[in-house]
């Protein structure tokens, strides 16, 4: 099962190496890793998607806690969250397919961010499944380039 961990770390050089090194040497499987600054300039937030059963995730969490640079580890999979990824896709278009592509982009609430003579660059955000679905629906037209971010997530506020 995939788990999303929010790891609050020192904002120092070498911190990423410590965290990724830990995953590598203990053979934990990272699906995605996103690092960003936080409101506090001394801290960064790593959102790590990792595969494993409960015992593995417990070990990952405990081992992360042992790193002196790690302040807090939260397993977001235990929480109600909103999670997002972002993808930029450059798709081949011809005059006769352009309208169909734009309609699909509209269905996925994507945006065209660059317009070329024979291609469109599209931005889509959403959870992983939505991005996967969008990518699948673009494939028949011909994907020229695809970049996507890792997952970021935020805990839902209590209603």
């Amino acid at each position, binding site marked *: 099962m995939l788990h999303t961990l929010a790891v609050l770390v*020192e904002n120092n050089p*070498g911190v990423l*190496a*410590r965290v990724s*090194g830990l995953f590598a*040497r203990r053979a934990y499987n990272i699906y995605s890793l996103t690092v960003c600054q936080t409101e506090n300039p001394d801290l960064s937030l790593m959102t790590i998607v990792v595969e494993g059963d409960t*015992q593995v995730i*417990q*070990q990952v969490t*405990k*081992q992360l*806690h*042992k790193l*002196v*640079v*790690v*302040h807090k580890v939260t397993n977001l999979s235990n929480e109600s969250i909103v999670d997002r990824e972002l993808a930029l896709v450059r798709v081949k278009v011809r005059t006769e397919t352009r309208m169909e592509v734009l309609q699909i982009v509209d269905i996925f609430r994507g945006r065209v961010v660059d317009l070329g003579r024979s291609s469109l660059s599209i931005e889509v955000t959403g959870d992983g499944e939505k991005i996967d679905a969008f990518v699948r629906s673009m494939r028949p037209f011909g994907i020229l380039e695809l970049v996507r971010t890792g997952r970021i997530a935020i805990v839902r506020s209590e209603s």
Partner: protein
Amino acid sequence: MQQTPSDSSYLWDEELQPTNHIFNGAKCVLQMLEEQGVEVIFGYPGGAVLPLYDALRESSIRHVLPRHEQGGVHAADAYARASGKVGVCLATSGPGAANLVTGIANAYMDSIPLIAITGQVTTPLLGSDCFQEVDITGITMPVTKHSYLVKNVNDLPRIMREAFYIAGTGRPGPVLIDIPRDVQAAQLPQPDPADKDKAVSIKSYRYFGKGNAGQIEEAVKALQASQKPIVYAGGGIITSGAGAVLTQLIDTLNLPIVTTLMGIGSIATDHPNCLGMVGMHGTATANFAVTDCDLLLAVGVRFDDRVTSGLHHHFATHATIVHVDIDPAEIGKVIVPDIPIVGDARLVLEEILSGLQSVHVSESASPSSTLPSQTENCKQTLTSLEPRIPNHEPRTWWDTIRAWQQDHPLRYEPSERLNPQQVLEAMVKIGGSDAIVTTDVGQHQMWAAQFYRVRYPRHFITSAGLGTMGFGLPAAIGAQLACPDKTVFLVTGDGSLQMTIQELATTRQNDLPIKIILMNNGVLGMVRQLQKYLNDERFNQIQLQANPDFVKVAEAYGIRGMRVEKPAEMEPAIRAALAENGPFLVDCLISPDEVVLPMVPPGKAIHEMLLGG
């Protein structure tokens, strides 16, 4: 990045100024070491630590010069093991730092508090592959508890204090501090010595002390309900200073106990309840008892594969497992315990003892009396507790255990040749009960673990987790410097000794009266044994054909020695070694056919031992 010659020459110019009057990074390092109570450091000079060595001349700290950085780091490691303090070693950049790596990994695997200070190329040259540059913080990342690369001299006081705090607290471990040469030479305001008592505060670092009261109560109940309990004690007992309270617990409930290799000395090995070492070369009784027990009280251990044979599904399968460890990550890493307790071994064991007491007090006739203070009244109350362990049937369990001990003692066949076990027996007989033994790695190490009698914690010093050949001689140096008044034996082999034999010079230079007991069989015995049993005697690359005459080698270093070939010569040889004021080497010639038994072959559960005989 382009480096112009003028950049580096500028740096040299600055360093070459008369610096006596200024307070620089190097002096700060020394002040911080003194502040931490460091008395000895093990270091090897070089270009990138020139300012540190200049500052050392005016320091009260004793500097010991090994003949290789690996010797220095192992000595610092063993100094920490013998003294309970943080060991400190120092090396220059590049090869100096890289030569520390094995020793740092060794300390990491055995959770030894160690500070490794390395010089580094100047900050403008960092990352330029310049002369004697290695990324030592990067190289050591997987084998340090934490590490620092100091880029700003003003961070030095904080970093030094943090490093000692991190190395010595919680589950101890090595901390590396990499200091570029220009940072050592840079000026900073002298730290206020009064600040040393200020508590170090690292927001993202904390460690556990007391165990959870509810869990401890569960453990107490489990102990009381158990018919076939056993204690499995490891290095955590020694680190936390829990030896005394452990022995008290063992005596109180008449519990049998097994130890790991790191746990040797946590209880006297000749205590009647101590069944010896558990695991791959453990005693048959220890392995049977752990397999058969219904309660395993595991304290300061990590269920290492040398103990469980890597088959944790076949390890203590009938037992309720209580796992006490200060490192939460060790709980559930290998075996998921029934009763996990995160905390300091000493504090938790004290609380378990006091829990046993409170049960007694609440059920006795004086319910109104307050709980007796643990330290003052412990003995008295606990003695009266003894008859009251209703479900515990010590006789039956102990009868079983004693029968195992009778049927499968540790033994050997005496012959005309000297047996390795006889070497150890002579040491036990003549060496006194307070001697410290350091070992190298291999067959001699396992024989020492099996046959030497260790009466106190911190008296058996061995490379357990990493199994580093070459650890022994430098370890003896560190232990002798930590305990100058004690007899220090080194039990080593001809393979291991040759990995760090240059430290005979360090031994001689510092007049360290180490008694080197060399088990010389002319082969890499442990590998030979593995090839014998696992490769059907297809021996390969285990002959040490061009071995030197070790007595002559010792003599060349100014160390007296003698050779022993017959059992009858062994005790006189140990007497001669102890009578010598300085170091002494006893070259004990033993047969290459000697094997360490029992032995749990790979893939077998620990009760499926080769017992021999």
